[in-house]
C-alpha cells in the first residue's frame, strides 16, 4: 500500500509541463472516471466477499470504497462541467448522454448511502447494502460505457469509437497513464484511511460500550 501511495505521489509531479491549454485536462478529468470505475469495482468485489463471508471488515471496505468512488465521480462531474463551459459553451446540457448518465450513476450510489442510513442494526445494514451495491455496480458499465457510445454526442468516446483514438497526440499517453496510476493510488490510500476509521469506530462502539455503561 505504501509503495502504491509513494508511486502515486512521486509520479504525479512531473506530469504538468507537457503540452498546452485544455488538453492538459486529460490528465485530470479522465483519470477521475477511471479511478471511480476501479474503486466501484473494488466495492463490488468487497460486497460480494461480504455476502460470502459476512465479516464486518468486508462491509467496511465496501462502504469506504463506494464513498471514495462517489468522491471521485463528483470530481469528474465538476471538472467536466467546467471544461464543457469553455469548450462546448455550457455548464450542463441535457443533450449530452455521457454527462447525464454519469450523473445518474452517481445518484444510484448516493442512494446506497441513504439506504445504509436507514438501518440501525449493523448486520442488517451491511447485508442489504451489499446486495444493493451488487445491483448498483452492474449499472455502471452500462450507464458509463455502453449506452453513451450508442448515442450521438460531442463527448470523446461517443458513436462507437474509443475515446483514445488517433486524434490524440501520442505524447499525452506518457503522462496520462502515470496520472491514472497516481490517482488510483490516491484513491486506494483514502479508501484505506476511511476503512481504518470505520474499523476503529466499530471497535470503539463494541469495546467501550460496557465500560461506559
Amino acid at each position, binding site marked *: 500500500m505504501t509503495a502504491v501511495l509513494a508511486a502515486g505521489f512521486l509520479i504525479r509531479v512531473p506530469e504538468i509541463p507537457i503540452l*498546452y*491549454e*485544455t488538453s*492538459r*485536462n486529460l490528465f*485530470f*478529468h479522465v483519470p*477521475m472516471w477511471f479511478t471511480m470505475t476501479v474503486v466501484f469495482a473494488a466495492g463490488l468485489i468487497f460486497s460480494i466477499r461480504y455476502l460470502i463471508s459476512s465479516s464486518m471488515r468486508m462491509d467496511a471496505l465496501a462502504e469506504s470504497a463506494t464513498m471514495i468512488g462517489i*468522491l471521485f465521480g*463528483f*470530481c469528474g462531474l*465538476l*471538472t467536466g462541467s*467546467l*471544461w464543457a*463551459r*469553455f*469548450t*462546448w*459553451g*455550457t*455548464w*450542463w*446540457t*441535457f*443533450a449530452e448522454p455521457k454527462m447525464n448518465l454519469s450523473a445518474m450513476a452517481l445518484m444510484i450510489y448516493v442512494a446506497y448511502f441513504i439506504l445504509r442510513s436507514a438501518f440501525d442494526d449493523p448486520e442488517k445494514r451491511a447485508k442489504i447494502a451489499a446486495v444493493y451495491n451488487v445491483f448498483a455496480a452492474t449499472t455502471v458499465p452500462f450507464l458509463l460505457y455502453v449506452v453513451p457510445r450508442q448515442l450521438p454526442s*460531442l463527448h470523446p468516446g461517443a458513436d462507437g469509437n474509443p475515446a483514445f483514438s488517433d486524434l490524440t497526440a501520442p505524447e499525452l499517453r506518457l503522462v496520462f497513464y502515470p496520472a491514472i496510476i497516481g490517482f488510483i493510488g*490516491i484513491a486506494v490510500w*483514502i479508501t484505506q*484511511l*476511511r476503512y481504518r*476509521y470505520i474499523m*476503529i*469506530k466499530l471497535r*470503539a462502539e463494541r469495546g*467501550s460500550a460496557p465500560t461506559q455503561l
Partner: protein
Amino acid sequence: MTILINFFAILLIAATDTLASAYSDRWQGVQDPEHSNMIMQAMASNGLIFVVLGVSLIIWFVLISYLIRLEKKLDKLEQKF
C-alpha cells in the same frame, strides 16, 4: 458557513452565465466566453490555461475537504477516549 458563501458565489457566476434554454441541442447557439462577463473572460484568456487550473483546483479542494472531514471525525472519536 464558508461552504455556503462559496455556494452562493458559484450560483452568482452561474446565474450570470447560463444558457437560457438548457434543453437546446444546438451547440452553435451558445455565447462564446469572449462576449461573456468578466470572470469568464479572465478564465478564457491565455489559451484557456485557467480552465486547467480550475479543474485541478476542483479536484484538490474536493479531496482535501474530504480528508479534513475525515480528520474531524477522527478527532471526535479520539475525544471519547
